[in-house]
């Protein structure tokens, strides 16, 4: 039963580049429907780990299951069940809002009728119907970010990976974005997110902190603050990374 | 001065760390020379020619003799029927068939015109074209010398195709042309790409925000390429001599000076391109399409200028390579001194000044 709850299960994951261990025996799991914060300093190995979990590169060793599939043998199946959004967005600047939505829906093999009705829903929910025919490059950063997120979960993936999704946006949009993330979890989507904003770590159900290729801490924000006798996650992070 | 040398040193570091740059810089000229020298040869030798002489009179027989006396052609047999032409081509025994019409001499004498048909196996279009040109050349020389009053039944452009003929061997011709092409390409392409690279990577922003003057930035970027392109030019001359036996009859010093002038010209064109291109890709595109193609087509390197329509002839005078080729041919092949090429040199000098001024003027002291 427990296995079904763990949407990501990682045991002793190692990734080496030459003699350098970018990921050193990572072991963790992510529960279905939770918001999992994946923190760490630059160069701690976060990006390497995310690439493996998304089926973009192979680990050197370890057992890794994502959405019930093995990352060695079933990468294509994994890719179908996940969504991904990075800081640099994945929207085409020279296509319109509507064209972008349809493009991604098409990539994930949604049917024509399905696309049309869900596009309508999505635009309505984001209140972007009036700009559906505008080019992406013409719309403000905050809208782009929200749209990119909506596109990443358009095919209702089991897990969505967000790599620094809120970089550079204003504080209100940042919060609206997190409200969207919470909404997504209510639909049963698991969220795996990295960020440099430490207040955002507080919004996660559980947080892992990577230092030099290893996971040095993993717990709920409240427990971590208690463990490190800190008043916020920023202090926790500083204490850990400076150790 | 310290500033300047710092800049040049940095530029050399860029060049020697980038394998791709090195390959283009030194590999490309070598490959091109060898390709042009061996593959795209502009010479013909021992081409098999079949003769179908339907009149067998004095004129046609002596014309046939002339063809085989030229040294380029060897007889592949005398035909009696039209069907034999196809057979000859198919069996590969001949590349060209010359057909003299019936009553050839009679026509010549009475009507001042007679017809010779040249049929060629065009499956190898290039050498077919070349053989035709040579054949026409041989025949025309012969008939002209025989009788001035006889009008030639061939088109006017024939004479110009004598270009490939007799005293100039193909390799001799292509070394100056290739030098003009390679130096133009390497120098202009490399500078325009290296400057736009600074724009693309954002480092230009820092250079602009520093006390460096535009001319310091430009000179610093260009100097290493002057040296490297010069090495390139000398490599081409050396390879031409070692591999193909193309001599430098005239003064080597004069040759070097002219090369430096031409390199400077090409580099300043490169700088001008870089002031207009935002990305390396764009700079490369402009250099390739805007420089390389016209240089190949209009400089007289491959296609004789005299053959071109008037408009293109006029355009060709704008091609620096056109003048450089004349200069180099004179120095290398004819051994003439500066007295014979001062006009071309002056044109090149004028162009250089124009491009340097234009690029310094267009070089922006701010971001746009």
């Amino acid at each position, binding site marked *: 039963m427990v296995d079904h709850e763990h949407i990501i299960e990682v045991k002793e994951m190692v990734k080496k580049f030459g003699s350098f261990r970018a990921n050193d025996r990572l072991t963790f799991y992510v529960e279905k429907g939770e918001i999992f914060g994946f923190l760490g300093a630059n160069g701690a190995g976060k990006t390497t780990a995310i690439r493996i979990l998304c089926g973009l590169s192979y680990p050197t060793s370890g057992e890794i299951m994502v959405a019930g599939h093995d990352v060695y043998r079933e990468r294509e199946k994994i890719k179908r069940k996940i969504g991904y959004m990075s800081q640099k967005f994945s929207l085409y600047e020279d296509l319109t809002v509507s064209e972008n939505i349809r493009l991604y829906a098409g990539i994930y093999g949604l049917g024509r009728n399905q696309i049309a009705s869900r596009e309508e829903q999505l635009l309505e929910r984001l209140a972007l119907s009036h700009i559906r025919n505008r080019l992406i490059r013409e719309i403000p950063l905050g809208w782009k970010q929200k749209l990119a997120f909506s596109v990443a979960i358009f095919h209702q993936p089991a897990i969505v990976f967000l790599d620094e999704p809120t*970089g550079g946006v204003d504080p209100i949009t940042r919060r609206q974005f997190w409200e969207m993330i919470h909404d997504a979890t209510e639909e049963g989507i698991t969220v795996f997110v990295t960020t440099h904003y430490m*207040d955002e770590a507080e919004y996660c159900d559980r947080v892992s902190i990577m230092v030099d290729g290893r996971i040095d801490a993993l717990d709920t924000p409240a427990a971590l603050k208690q463990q490190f006798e800190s008043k916020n996650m920023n202090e926790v992070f500083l204490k850990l990374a400076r150790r | 001065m310290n500033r300047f040398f710092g*800049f040049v040193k*940095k530029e050399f570091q860029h060049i020697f760390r980038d394998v791709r740059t090195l390959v283009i810089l030194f590999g490309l000229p070598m490959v091109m020379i060898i390709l042009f020298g061996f593959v795209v040869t502009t010479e013909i030798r021992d081409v098999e020619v079949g003769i179908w002489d339907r009149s067998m009179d004095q004129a046609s027989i002596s014309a046939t003799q002339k063809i085989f006396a030229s040294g380029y052609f060897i007889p592949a047999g005398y035909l009696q029927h039209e069907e034999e032409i196809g057979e000859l081509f198919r069996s590969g025994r001949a590349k060209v068939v010359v057909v003299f019409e019936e009553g050839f001499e009679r026509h010549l004498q009475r009507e001042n015109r007679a017809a010779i048909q040249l049929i060629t196996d065009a499956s190898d279009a290039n050498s077919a074209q070349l053989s035709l040109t040579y054949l026409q050349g041989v025949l025309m020389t012969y008939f002209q010398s025989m009788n001035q009053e006889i009008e030639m039944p061939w088109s006017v452009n024939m004479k110009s195709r004598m270009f490939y003929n007799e005293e100039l061997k193909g390799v001799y011709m292509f070394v100056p042309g290739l030098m003009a092409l390679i130096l133009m390409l390497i120098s202009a392409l490399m500078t325009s790409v290296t400057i736009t690279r600074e724009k693309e990577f*954002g480092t230009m922003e820092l250079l602009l*925000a520093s*006390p460096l003057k535009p001319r310091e930035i430009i000179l610093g970027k260009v100097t290493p390429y002057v040296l490297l392109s010069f090495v390139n030019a000398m490599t081409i001359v050396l390879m031409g001599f070692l591999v193909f036996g193309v001599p430098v009859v005239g003064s080597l010093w004069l040759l070097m000076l002219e090369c430096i002038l031409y390199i400077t010209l090409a580099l300043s064109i490169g700088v001008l391109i870089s002031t207009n291109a935002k990305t390396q890709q764009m700079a490369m595109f402009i250099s390739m399409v805007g420089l390389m193609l016209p240089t190949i087509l209009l400089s007289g390197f491959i296609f004789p200028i005299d053959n071109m329509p008037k408009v293109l002839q006029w355009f060709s005078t704008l091609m620096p390579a056109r003048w450089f080729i004349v200069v180099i041919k004179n120095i290398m092949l004819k051994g003439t001194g500066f007295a014979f090429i001062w006009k071309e040199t002056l044109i090149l000098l004028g162009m250089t000044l124009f491009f340097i001024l234009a690029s310094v003027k267009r070089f922006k002291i701010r*971001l746009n």
Partner: protein
Amino acid sequence: MSLIIDHIDKSFDAVQALSRIDFEVQDGELFGLIGPDGAGKSTLFRIMASLLVPDAGRCIMHGYDVVDDYREVRKIIGYMPGRFSLYMDLSVEENLAFYARVFGTSVEENYDLISDVYEQIAPFKRRLAGKLSGGMKQKLALSCALIHRPRVLILDEPTTGVDAVSRREFWDMLKKIQGQGITIVVSTPYMDEAEMCDRVALIQKGRVLEISDPSIPRDGDDTQLFSLRSNRGVYAYLERVRSMEGCKHAWLFGDQLHVTPKSKDNAEKMKSVMDSWDDPSLQWKPILPSIEDRFMGLMEQESEEHSTNGERI
């Protein structure tokens, strides 16, 4: 006065990037420009670095106009663009030596100024700049911007995309540099970095919303700010609080909600409603607004003023 920004306007095609920007920076001050991407920070910094010409207004750097006397300006500023702008194919020490020579100086001459920063990356001095981590790249870029001992250091988003630890270290270094008498103007999208500055300008959509000293707590606003905490997590309460009658705004804020009631009376009423929610861990108390709260408050104010056309982000 180190820097005078005098009513600067700048637009690109139809887009108004900056409108009526107006502030001054004192000698030796650490001045922050805080705002999200697209607020116009980089445009303003490029004007300060003499790389762009404003449409209207003036920018005076130590008495030199950045347009007319750009040559002088370029001698006295150290500029670090928003994008990492060093040579990736040169090593750490080669980059530094190059910029030293560009400014007609040498690494040795001003080594004392950069030693704090440079010693942290010195172990990697033979590594190519392109192979450095984000934090180390920033340190190298800072060393290069400092190597000629500029009078004004202009740093455009030096900490963007850098992790919290490196960011803290970076600010510590800036404090030390400030101690050497160098004026620093720095921009950042991270609101929590405001407290490291002597003064900050909050900037949004090309306009300065406010200039303030983050060390002076602000209160006495017409409305007050409250924080709500709960051991059960506050997200669950967000919609509930927002739907309350007396609530003006409520936003997630770390492990709390920050709530702005419509008035003081409303705060009392809200408190009494919350008491009925049967969560003993619920904590409701007035707090002083941080810079981020201020920023959000000013944004709300702006959007209310502009809400006539109905477009809101």
